[in-house]
């Protein structure tokens, strides 16, 4: 798959993105790493890329505590822009350090295909296998 990898609008962290790029590449995927602090417009533009680099999946990673809010904004903007690609998000999504089921529900309702807990690369891998196998799972909150 071609995977578009992105940080969120206000998140400056990059090690999560460096790691995920290596992780996804080792699973045999091609990765376009947009880097940190990606505004919604840039993300939507990259999703719309056509030709050989056309993405099959958007992976959003956030660790600065604004992930629920920024991720929600990003997925809403993508869906508004008519992007139908699967979009998944994961990381440390809130400031409290524990997953918030209510916020997670909002992400899924807004059009996220999956929400992954911090460090749960096993669940991400399973999701990728499923997607690569042609199945797009019902929207799920993983783990």
């Amino acid at each position, binding site marked *: 798959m071609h995977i578009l990898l992105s940080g969120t609008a206000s998140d*400056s962290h990059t090690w999560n993105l460096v*790691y995920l790029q290596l992780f996804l590449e080792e699973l045999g995927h091609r990765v376009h790493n947009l880097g940190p602090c990606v505004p919604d417009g840039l993300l939507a533009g990259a999703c719309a890329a056509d030709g050989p680099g056309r993405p099959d999946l958007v992976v959003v990673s956030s660790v600065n505590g604004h992930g629920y809010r920024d991720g929600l904004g990003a997925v809403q903007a993508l869906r508004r822009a008519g992007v139908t690609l699967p979009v998944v998000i994961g990381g440390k999504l809130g*400031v409290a*350090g524990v997953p918030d089921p209510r916020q997670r529900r909002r992400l899924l309702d807004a059009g996220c295909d999956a929400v992954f807990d911090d460090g749960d690369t096993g669940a991400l891998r399973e999701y990728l296998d499923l997607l690569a196998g042609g199945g797009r799972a019902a929207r799920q909150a993983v783990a």
Partner: protein
Amino acid sequence: MSGGATLLAPSAAREPAAPDTSFGGFVARAAASGQLVVQPRMGFGDPHRMRDGLRRTRDAVATTVGTLTIDSYTRVGDQDAARAALREGTPLNGYPIATHSGEVTRALLEGVRGPAFPVQVRHGSSRPEGIVRALAAAGLDATEGGPVSYCLPYGRTPLAESVENWARCCELLAELVPAPRVPHLESFGGCMLGQLCPPGLLVALSLLEGLFFVRHGIRSVSLSYAQQTDPAQDEEAVRALRRLAAEFLPAGVDRHVVLYTYMGVFPRTARGATRLLEASARLAVRAGAQRLIVKTAAEAHRIPTVQENVRALETAAATAALCGRPTDPPGPADGEVYREARAFVEAVLDLAEDPGRALLTAFARGVLDVPYCLHPDNAGRSRSFVDADGRLRWSEVGAMPVAPYRDAPPGRALTADGLLVALGSVARRHDGPRARP
């Protein structure tokens, strides 16, 4: 010529004897009395919590300075999002200084900040004009960052734009905080990406940003260095930074060195986190840094509470007090880190007379090349590794004026697991049952 009967008063005597309320002055006085200044990272969206955090920082059993850490929305200039979050009641990860009014910020500082408790604004912005205006309007005068260190690791601003922004903001800060007040600017250059950047490059970047600040009118600077993987190498780095500062910064510019407790993947156990914090406090004293930015035991898990910050400040201060006064080893600090850092500094300053232009050219040509940095203006050809003894080394240097380590692992691609191992090496060492101090 008039006769010799009139004695000119020394210039200092002609100036009003205003108390020195500057950030740099406070650190200098603490250092003169043998105290390490300790400082938290701390920012809350709510002014009352922010004030309480500052008050409790001031009242900690330690020589402290306060911090207003700015939230991420303000950092990227998205004032609308900061305002909306305040309205919604969504907790922010810092204090939105450009969204709260100047009166609100002044009120939260009133009676807390003073000559005995200066406060620094910490933000991470490559477009800091709004923050600089807001901090000056609130009566503050100390902040940090830099054209490279607040651009390459943290976002998408083109480096040329960041250099321009920072030049203007240095001059703006100098203008908005006129003499006899002394605005202070700290370079974050010694902290690039937090981990896995070999010390020679960190030291060079911090020094080069310090020179940039001075070129743009700032007369009180601090240079930073973040604790890395090996205590001896770190000690060498802090000494190298002090020596280069003495060699390259103009006389008359107030300066000090600030050490950061490890900024990479933090130990997950309270014991491991405390050991790492204590090691950084000892390093600061041993190597002659005058200020320490601490981390807390909660760091691996979430944004720390005020109480956790106070505990970290007091732990660091107590550890430092037990170390006694620093004694520099005899002879010049001209180890490997110094030689590498000096090679970077000289190569960069040779590129242009103006430090900003020199930095831009250096990154464009890969003379400076931060490993694992995703920014489009970074060449991205350098790689580093942690050697068998725990020291950070270059495995690939691209076009940089330094050599790869002779025992670098053969050029194979870094794996995701390999990266995690390298990123987690310090945490594992301190969490482990036989953690070395």
